[in-house]
């Protein structure tokens, strides 16, 4: 059949459906909701796995991260001044380094509470004191200058590497390399700037808003100037915290070693700490969790989509069966005027497909709206890829064809004489 004939059939289908606008509209609802669920499902699932993958990229897929966490405040809050000592220690670092054969490197990180200032501009980023290997293990990249070196570490140099956001905030117009910034009470020479972490849209968020960037100083320098003690002033009371190491990043030789390392690290920490002041973060486990979220969403939305599409398809079939009965005489006339069975079949199939695609298109519009709302109100990342709507469109065409088949077949096989006599 030629293209012109098909367009004419589609137009004819439209015309016939427009004779019963409300009925046609109601018929499309099932497909509409089914299709929008499909799109939302894909977008949410895609968002969840993208988010997890991003986290993994950020933390390193072959890393296991040990972190200090403040143990729950038990009944000590009426004290005005005290020293709270918790967290990972140098001893943990040594143990982690030496005891597992599949750990290639263990990177200590200390986090300092210090203000960073350049001229008038000041902010409170995370000041991380670490060793040169940090950048290799985490896979981060330098955009300008260089990262900390072994030489800096040995000589306890007052040098600092700025994170991208911090660099943008402190020195929006000039290259900051070589300038001196003040961290706490001391001056540090800027030797490098890192590339942004992941999303470049943090660009826009930098000036004015609170910058949560990072700066890096040699571990030896950090310890020399700032010691182990952190003083926090909190609602009138002075609180001192003593934390030796905030983070230990373990680099594992192979991905298969990651769960083993995580298990061993948990065991080691549990054995050596008498309080729960640590946690073990395994990026690969985050992925598994994200996959789980995605799976649950797929089941829920997939069921909604499946049921809606089924009900929608049956609705279309039902209405089309009624239409075939109503239009029996028209079918008879067309047959008498030379229509072959396949012409009648095509005419009614096209009508079903037009109905289903109408619902499908509206469903795509709604389906694109749902991820937007989810992102806004449920704080979940969603990603709409073009194959979502394309798939949804294909599904609606398929529904139209599948559920139109029987009514169209009925129409095509009516006896012309009987059909002509029909009132």
């Amino acid at each position, binding site marked *: 059949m030629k293209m012109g004939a098909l367009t004419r059939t589609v137009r004819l289908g439209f015309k016939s459906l427009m004779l019963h606008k409300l009925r046609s509209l109601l018929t499309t609802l099932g497909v509409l909701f089914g299709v929008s669920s499909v799109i939302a499902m894909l977008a949410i699932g895609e968002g969840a796995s993208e988010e997890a993958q991003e986290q993994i990229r950020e933390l390193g897929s072959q890393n296991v991260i040990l972190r200090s966490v403040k143990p729950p405040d038990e009944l000590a809050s009426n004290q005005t001044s005290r020293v709270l000592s918790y967290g990972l220690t140098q001893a943990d670092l040594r143990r982690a380094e030496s005891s597992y054969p599949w750990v290639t490197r263990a990177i200590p990180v200390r986090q300092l509470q210090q203000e960073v200032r350049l001229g008038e501009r000041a902010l409170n980023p995370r000041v991380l004191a670490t060793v040169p290997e940090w950048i290799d293990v985490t896979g981060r990249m330098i955009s300008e200058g260089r990262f900390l070196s072994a030489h800096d570490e040995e000589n306890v140099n007052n040098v600092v590497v700025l994170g991208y956001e911090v660099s943008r905030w402190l020195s929006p117009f000039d290259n900051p390399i070589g300038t001196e910034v003040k961290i706490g009470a001391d001056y540090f020479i800027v030797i490098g700037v890192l590339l942004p972490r992941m999303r470049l849209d943090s660009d826009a968020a930098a000036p004015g808003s609170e910058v949560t960037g990072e700066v890096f100083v040699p571990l030896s320098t950090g310890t020399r100037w700032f010691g182990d003690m952190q003083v926090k002033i909190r609602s009138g009371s002075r609180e001192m915290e003593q934390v030796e190491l905030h983070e230990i990043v373990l680099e594992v030789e192979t991905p298969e070693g990651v769960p083993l390392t995580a298990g061993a690290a948990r065991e080691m920490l549990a054995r050596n700490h008498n309080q729960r002041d640590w946690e073990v973060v395994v990026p690969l486990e985050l992925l598994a969790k994200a996959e789980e979220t995605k799976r649950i969403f797929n089941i829920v939305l997939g069921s909604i989509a499946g049921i809606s599409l089924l009900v929608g398809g049956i609705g279309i079939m039902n209405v089309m069966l009624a239409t075939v009965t109503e239009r029996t005489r028209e079918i008879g006339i067309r047959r008498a005027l030379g229509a072959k069975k396949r*012409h009648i079949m095509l005419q009614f199939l096209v009508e079903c497909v037009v109905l289903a695609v109408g619902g499908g298109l509206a469903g795509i519009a709604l389906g694109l709206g749902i991820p937007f709302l989810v992102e806004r109100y449920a704080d979940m990342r969603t990603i709409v890829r073009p194959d979502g709507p394309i798939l949804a469109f294909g599904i609606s065409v398929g529904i139209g064809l599948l559920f139109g088949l029987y009514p169209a077949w009925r129409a095509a096989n009516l006896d012309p004489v009987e059909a002509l006599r029909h009132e």
Partner: protein
Amino acid sequence: MAPDPQPAAGGNAPVAELKDVQRVYRMGNNEVRALDGVSVAFGAGEFWSIMGTSGSGKSTLLNILGCIDRPTGGSYHVDGTNVNELDDDGLSELRGTRIGFVFQSFNLIPQLNVLENILVPVFYRDEQPAHAEDRARMIAERVGLGGRFDHRPTELSGGQQQRVAIARALINDPPIVLADEATGNLDSTTAQEILELFDELHAEGKTILLVTHEAIIARRAQLMLRLKDGRVEKIEAGDKSR
């Protein structure tokens, strides 16, 4: 016993030829013999009228002649093609191109306008002819429709609707035009106009087979076929033959 075939009663070469045609409806144990051995040859370019009491089998005969129904016995040839040997598509093709139908109740398609209704049979042809729309306008003009091309059937009078139906029957230029009580739903003046249209078509060389109840109308034909209980009762000459 079937009566002898009436070889080309009008003298012309047959364009539609029935030989001992039976049409039997089975209803449980009963059978209704709507046509019971009809043999007749309709010559090319002849104008026939078909008469008979109600239930005598006129519509059944016309349906078979129009290839929307098949005989249950006997044979029917259109333009030399044996209808029994055709499949459903072949029959459809035949009625689309060789036969024009005009019905008592007009049978226009309500959601289509006049022009679209006239063009329906074109739509179902395997090859789309060029300038079909121009031709439709020309024919509409020819059957006296004036310019009402985008009116819906419901916006037309009965006579106008029947003119649309006739234009539709003519659009593929079939050699045979079948009319089943085409004037039955029209007042006498309008009926007269429609009948004049059939006269003109006959003059142009089409074979016209007109089913009617009314003797006056029947007599306008060259030949009158009278059916009784599914059989040919007699064939007479009409006024036109003189």
